[in-house]
């Protein structure tokens, strides 16, 4: 089926260490109003709504049901939810638009990492029999991957520090970012990763509007056309994977058509500096590609929204005319277990 679908609007919160003065819906609602306002659409005009979030971040079952209050789902709406990063909610919405059942979609996601001990919360994602009982935290797992990269000669600590510095320097232009400008590279958290190699922990939300064909052209001066989007998962256990590579990213990129022509921009969801090294290799990005001009997840990493934000940031650059062909990537699971790649293009100028 050949239907052109584009990202026509994107909004995000200012990401902060804590948003405790706001409930999830109070945090989310301004972002929803923002994307609707950009397009002039009302909830009732939207053909399909899809969101991504996690009960485990909130510490409450069915936490997404209250977030729905911010949408104004009345009269009732066609709506779905993934217990995944919002990037996958966007994927679900994209397939819905492809079927022709809807012409527009609202996609949102949010995550509050501040209420819980995030490093420990994420251990609950791991094999519940052999691994979760050891409580290996998310930084520890990323550190194992970083050491494997160092051992393989793919990077070293100064190179990782350079990724961190570049990301935070780029984030100075991003008013939503949580960590901006010079940030000390700091002490080891779990060696070889230092505080500077790790993402900030924080709360945030993001929303995107998708539209098909002519509808997209009417809603946005320069739509960010989704030329391809695909996602792939790998085996769960770290001990069976080559942690220095990301075959699922490469395969998703191939299926999304990323290698057909070079991209000028890449927004990579690499919460840890070392993961950017893996992704650059998997995606065959050379130095000519502008990587994470937003500052990436090292500048703001609201879990469950950070992947959708990559797509939103890439799309926004197309909207602004700063990119003609951009790649956006999202990840989920320990050490890049699951990866999504989208390719966005603007109409020729």
């Amino acid at each position: 089926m050949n239907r052109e679908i584009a990202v026509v609007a994107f909004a995000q919160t200012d990401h902060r260490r804590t948003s405790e003065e706001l409930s999830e819906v109070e945090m989310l609602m301004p972002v929803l109003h923002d994307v609707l306002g950009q397009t002039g659409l009302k909830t009732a005009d939207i053909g399909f709504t899809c969101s991504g979030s996690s009960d485990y971040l909130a510490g409450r079952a069915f936490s997404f049901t209250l977030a729905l209050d911010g949408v104004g789902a009345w009269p009732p709406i066609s709506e779905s939810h993934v217990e995944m990063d919002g990037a996958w909610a966007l994927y679900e919405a994209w397939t819905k638009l492809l079927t022709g059942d809807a012409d527009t979609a609202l996609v949102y996601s949010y995550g509050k990492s501040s209420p819980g001990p995030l490093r420990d919360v994420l251990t609950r994602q791991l094999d519940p029999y052999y691994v979760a009982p050891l409580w290996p935290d998310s930084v520890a797992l990323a550190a194992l991957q970083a050491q494997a990269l160092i051992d393989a000669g793919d990077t070293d600590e100064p190179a990782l520090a350079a990724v961190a510095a570049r990301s935070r320097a780029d984030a100075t232009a991003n008013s939503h970012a949580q960590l901006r400008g010079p940030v000390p590279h700091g002490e080891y958290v779990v060696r070889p990763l230092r505080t500077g190699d790790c993402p900030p922990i924080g709360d945030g939300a993001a929303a995107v509007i998708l539209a098909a064909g002519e509808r997209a052209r009417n809603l946005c001066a320069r739509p960010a056309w989704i030329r391809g989007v695909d996602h792939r998962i790998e085996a769960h256990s770290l001990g069976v994977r080559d942690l220095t590579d990301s075959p699922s990213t490469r395969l998703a990129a191939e299926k999304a058509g990323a290698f057909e022509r070079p991209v000028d921009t890449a927004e990579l969801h690499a919460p840890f500096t070392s993961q950017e090294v893996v992704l650059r290799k998997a995606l065959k990005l050379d130095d000519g590609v502008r990587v994470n001009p937003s500052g990436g997840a090292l500048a703001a990493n609201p879990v469950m929204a950070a992947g959708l934000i990559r797509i939103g940031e890439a799309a926004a650059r197309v909207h602004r005319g700063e990119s003609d062909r951009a790649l956006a990537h999202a990840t989920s699971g320990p050490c890049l277990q699951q990866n999504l790649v989208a390719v966005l293009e603007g109409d020729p100028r």
Partner: protein
Amino acid sequence: MSKEPVAVVGIGQTKHVAARRDVSIAGLVREAARRALDDAELTWADIDAVVIGKAPDFFEGVMMPELYLADALGAVGKPMLRVHTAGSVGGSTALVAANLVAASVHGTVLTLAFEKQSESNAMWGLSLPIPFQQPLLAGAGGFFAPHVRAYMRRSGAPDTVGSLVAYKDRRNALKNPYAHLHEHDITLEKVQASPMLWDPIRYSETCPSSDGACAMVLTDRAGAARAPRPPAWMLGGAMRSEPTLFAGKDAVSPQAGKDCAADVYRQAGIADPRRDIDAVEMYVPFSWYEPMWLENLGFAAEGEGWKLTEAGVTELDGDLPVNMSGGVLSTNPIGASGMIRFAEAALQVRGQAGEHQVERARKVLGHAYGGGSQFFSMWLVGSAPPDA
């Protein structure tokens, strides 16, 4: 531009029980998936993508368990999506999978939903001690019983209707080898003599807590042409949501349910559901929800649903059989319950329902709902493809 027709060519489920102590979580989902593949005579390599659903992660204490289950479901190197829409999730999951085929993104998709309730305790997962909130003043049934009373007040239904539903569903379950509750000595008198837990809901009118999984293989026209057994064709499918609690909400007959059904009927060309649909498998966690949903889904006028139940219309040999499998009242692995409804509808139109097969079941509705009666997902499947 037209949508690719979607066919169900494989269905598998586990024997649902209170606790599957012999398998891991992976072992449980694997069993259903394997049976669905066997039914379709396909291998793991034939599957292009996996779409999995379940209710809250706290039930098993595994956050986003699809990450750990990727290997067991043959998803390595493939796309894997995880849906969570509360109690309706089993149905929503199937619809998300169906969209992948309808959009021609993938040719053949495995979809699966599960719950291994015995890993924890459903009431624990549903009532975490959130500070400042008023504690729940009643158990699970207490949440639903006031709505049942409201329905009785509105419709004037006699208070025996709930027991008729329970008696029927438990007898239907005896014909379904996968059903959790097999009460061989069930009688109407026993149902009516069971303790009144949350008046007006009796013990025998409530659902059990089960370990179980359900899987389906969905495919396109080309896949259906290769299928070894008759496929079920999706004729319509929709999801609708409304807020949890709001001023003007009709908890007895939610607007989202009506709109969802209307959308499905429109897609499937159903003018009169009572006449055009042969059987219904609906999500009835407490027996009184059968007459309530009969009205909500347009099979009876408002206030009249109980008359169909009372007249025996919804019996297995009735004019509009409801919950041929024994329903949620007999089997309730929460995350899978919606998909079991969808799968039963497909089994019926494929003629594969065994002892609980309805004769001449050509169009059957599968229905799921969840949250505060706010999330609905439904599909209508038929024995003939949509353009036939």
